Structure formats: C-alpha cells, structure tokens
C-alpha cells in the first residue's frame, strides 16, 4: 500500500513543490487549496508523474472544511502517513506593529495558527490508532526571531512553533511525530508581499523539499530544521 501525504496550500509555491516531490517518491496525495484553478494545474502535473491524488478546495481555517478534506482523503486511501501543514497567509506587506490594522492582525493569527491546529487535530486520530505518522509544520526564521515589519505573520509563526513544541511533548511515545521546517527565503508570491523590493537571490521552493521527504520517514520528534542548510543525513539539526 502506498504511503499517503496530505498537503495544505498545495496550489502554489512550496506546497506545489512538495506535491510534485512526494508524487515523484511514489506517495499517494491528498491536496487542498482555497482556489480551484491553480490546484487543478498541480493535480494535472502530479497525475502525469503517475500519482494517485484526491483533491478539494477548502479553507483550512474552517473546521467543517478541514473535516471534509481529511475525511475524503481517509475514505479514499484508508490512512494518512504524513501531514504537511503548509498553508499560511502573510497579511499586509511590511507593516510596523504600531500601524497594523486590528482586523488584519486577528485574521492572520486565526489563519496561520488555527489551520495547523485544526488539520492536525483531525488527522491525528487515524495516526494514533495506527501508532505511526509524521506531521510537519512549516515555520519561518521570523517564528524564532522578532524582525521589524514582519507583523502578524511573524507572531503567528511564533505560535506555530509553540503549538508544535507542546504537541511534540504530548505525542512522545505514541509513534506519531511532529516537527518544524523553516524553508528559508524562497522565490514565492508570499515573499514578494513580505519584501516587495528584494534585491538578493532567492531559493526555488524545489530546492528545499529534501528535508520534508526526510522527516516523512524520520522518528525524530519536536525538532526544528532549516531546509536550506539541510543534508539528507540530518546533519544540520539544531
């Protein structure tokens, strides 16, 4: 039976690169994104690789959408081996906290913290019943260091790091692991929003997928990886 990976925010950037990488490794895929059109393009590509894929549009900040997405994947493949909580939103571009609109601040926190909480909570029962599973949360350098003008996105990633640390402790000994990956700065739409006038070279999302493939099979728990300095032996674990 093929291993099954579930990826949120799979229609572009890192999510799309992960879908293609796991498809090449022979995984069956459960993919979701908010917008149907770009997601359909990714589905076409992974099918060309030969992957079996289930997909739906979903807003993973909504519990009902999360239940629907995870349920149709579990119904189709019978299990989930790997969950990658990739979906996130940046909010407004570079903004000082003192200038940050209240609604936008709240919206970014809800989107970026609620979605890994909800999807993990929904996917966990099946993993715990089988006593195996790997959950990977995508974080950022600004989830560890406070940097001016990264605003609610940075705050939310601090939250994701806390969420992961707590869950890692709670999952110790269950056979299910949860880890963090900081993919580093990549050439994505989100990076364009964060740093509109970036004048230095950026990685491609395709360059950072190895650490995710490694963690999918790893027994490590509660660890934080920086994708751009990772080699497949895991030598750069902090």
């Amino acid at each position: 039976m093929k291993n099954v990976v579930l990826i949120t925010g799979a229609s572009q950037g890192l999510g799309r690169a992960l879908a293609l990488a796991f498809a090449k490794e022979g995984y069956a895929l459960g993919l979701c994104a908010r917008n149907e059109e770009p997601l359909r393009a990714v589905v076409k590509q992974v099918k060309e690789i030969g992957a079996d894929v289930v997909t739906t549009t979903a807003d993973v900040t909504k519990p009902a959408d999360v239940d629907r997405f995870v349920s149709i994947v579990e119904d189709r493949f019978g299990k989930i081996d790997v969950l990658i909580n990739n979906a996130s939103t940046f909010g407004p571009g570079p903004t000082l906290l003192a200038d940050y609109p209240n609604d936008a601040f709240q919206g970014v926190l809800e989107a970026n913290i609620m979605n890994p909480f909800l999807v993990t909570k929904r996917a966990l029962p099946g993993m715990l019943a089988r006593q195996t599973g790997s959950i990977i949360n995508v974080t950022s350098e600004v989830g560890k260091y406070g940097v001016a003008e990264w605003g609610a996105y940075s705050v939310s990633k601090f939250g994701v790091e806390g969420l992961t640390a707590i869950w890692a402790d709670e999952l110790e000994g269950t056979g299910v692991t949860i880890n963090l990956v900081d993919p580093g700065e990549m050439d994505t739409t989100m990076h364009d929003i964060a740093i509109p006038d970036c004048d230095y070279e950026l990685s491609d999302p395709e360059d950072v997928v190895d650490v995710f493939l490694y963690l999918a099979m790893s027994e490590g728990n509660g660890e934080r990886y920086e994708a751009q300095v990772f080699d497949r032996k895991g030598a750069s674990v902090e």
Partner: protein
Amino acid sequence: MNAVSPSFTIPDSLNAKQPAELTYSRRDHVRLMTIDECATVMHGSFHDIVQQLHAGDVLVLNNSRTIPPVLRGTQGQQTIEVRLSRKVGAQTWEALIVGDMFQSNETIRFTDGVEAAVTGHGAERPLITLDFSIEGSALLDFIYQHGEPVRYEYIDDSFPLETYQTVYGSVPGSVEMASAGRAFTWQLLEKLKSKGVHIAFVQLHAGLSYYENDKWPSPTNHPEHFRVPRETASLLNEARKSGTRVIAVGTTVVRALESAVTEDGCVETREGVTRLYVDDQHTITSVDGLLTGFHEPEASHLHMLTAFLPYAKLMSAYHQALEQGYLWHEFGDLNLIFRQQP
C-alpha cells in the same frame, strides 16, 4: 418484530439536549452507572472507569466517524429530505426518504447539478437504494458540503457535525454517531493506558437507528459494514489467553467483534457486512463488558444488553437510572455492564 414491550418511559427532563462540554465545559463530565458481574448497581462519575478497568484489560473503540447524511433535494416543486443510511457502492446508498410526497419513479435533484435515481428497495422497508450521478470521493465531498447531521426531535439546537463525533473518530462512514465513546477525552484514554489498559480499534459504520413514524430498524435485517483489524484481533486473543477482560465501547463494537469470532472462540481479522443480531439467545464470547448509553425501550440495542444480563435485572437497573436522573440518548450518561457469569 419492531419493538420490545415498552416497560418504561423516559421523561422529557431526562433527554440529554446538549453535549456535556456545553453544560460543564468538558465532554467527559457525564455520569456512569455500573452493573457488575453480580448485577450489583453502582452510581458514580464517568471517571470511575479508571478504577473499574484493570491493567491488561482491552478497551475496544469504534473509530468510525460520523458523516452528515441528511440531504435536501427536490422533485418538481416538492422538497425531499433524504437520510443516507449505508453506502452500498461507489455511487449507491441505502436511504430513507422522509415524508410521503415522493415519487419513486422520478429523479431527485440536488444542488450543483447532482441527481439521484431510486433503483430499488433497501434491506428493509422503508429504505430504498439511490444511485447518484457522481461517485467516490466526489460524492463524499458533496455529502460533506451539503449534508447535515441527523438531529432527532429531543434536540432543540442545530449543533454542527463536530458535536456528533468522538475524539478518536477517524474513518468516515457512520450516519449516526457511535455515541458510547463520546465522553472519552484523549486525556482519559491516556490515563487508562498509563494504568496498563490496552486501547484497540474496530470500525462499524452505523446506519440509521430510526425510520420515523414509530418505525425502528429490524435488527435481523440491518446490515452494517464492519472491519476488525489484525492488531485488534491479536490483542483480544492474547487477552483471552491471559484471562484479562475485553470491554466494548458501544453496541457497534459488540456487533463487529461477535461478527469476527471463529468457531473456536478466537477473534480474527475480518471485514465485510454484518447482519448479526445479538440478543439474549446469543452467547457472547468476545466481550466481557460493555460501555453504552441509556437506550429507548423500542431500540434494538436494548435487546443486545440482554445478552449481558437478564432482562429483569436490566430493567431493575434502568428503573434505578430513571430514579437517579441519568440522562438518555447520544449526549447522555453512560452505563458500564459486565457480563453475568452463567
């Protein structure tokens, strides 16, 4: 046969109208009535289960997850309520049509251009089989997007689907919650595990428990899909050898396990559709105890309880439960019954 003699009535005040977490902030804050092997009745809280179970016992949970099976379609100008009961094939479901204004030779139209045609009778009347115009994951996606949970008349609020889930529910397929395990939290399951109690899982996708108009499923004609995984069968057979107990959480678990028992009394890995009817004529071999809710006098689940203890003793305990004010139905209190030794 459709009903047992109604030997008691449930006052409206004992219908649990909302889940415990809304009343007490925690889903595990329900009461527990225990009937031991000698039919002695004890009253306490659900957390007493940690004392009731011993190291080596196996607690078996049904991790079927509830889907939202109530769909609304139309035939001409007429709104039709469809309650799905059991998945028969990729595009085919057994279902109940609520109400009389329904033409069996006319297509039911749903939103998004989805249609369903009646293709025959279900396992028993009034169930029918419906063939949908979409199938597989697309059909399940549609059901999730447009369906609602079954809400019976004693519930006043339109609680969302997540209210009708156990914390460990994983495999989608039940049209009604396997409610006996609803009060468990992961924290309580962890407490049991740290005491040495083994946790195991089966799946049985529960069908509709009521067909409206005072009609209940005939338990001899109520097929349900079930699966007993290899790990669970092994744990149960080891428990049998070592003399520790197996506690089923819910009548669905009893039905699944008893459907997987071999002639020599072992539980084996099995998946399929069960039509097994467990009542006082059935000798249970796979299970020593049952955690269950409080059942209506007409429900077939009550028959199953008589496989654990004689009807008169069960009714005596139930009358105590009524006097003590235990709450009935899916959000209600719980009853732990240990099988009487013959």
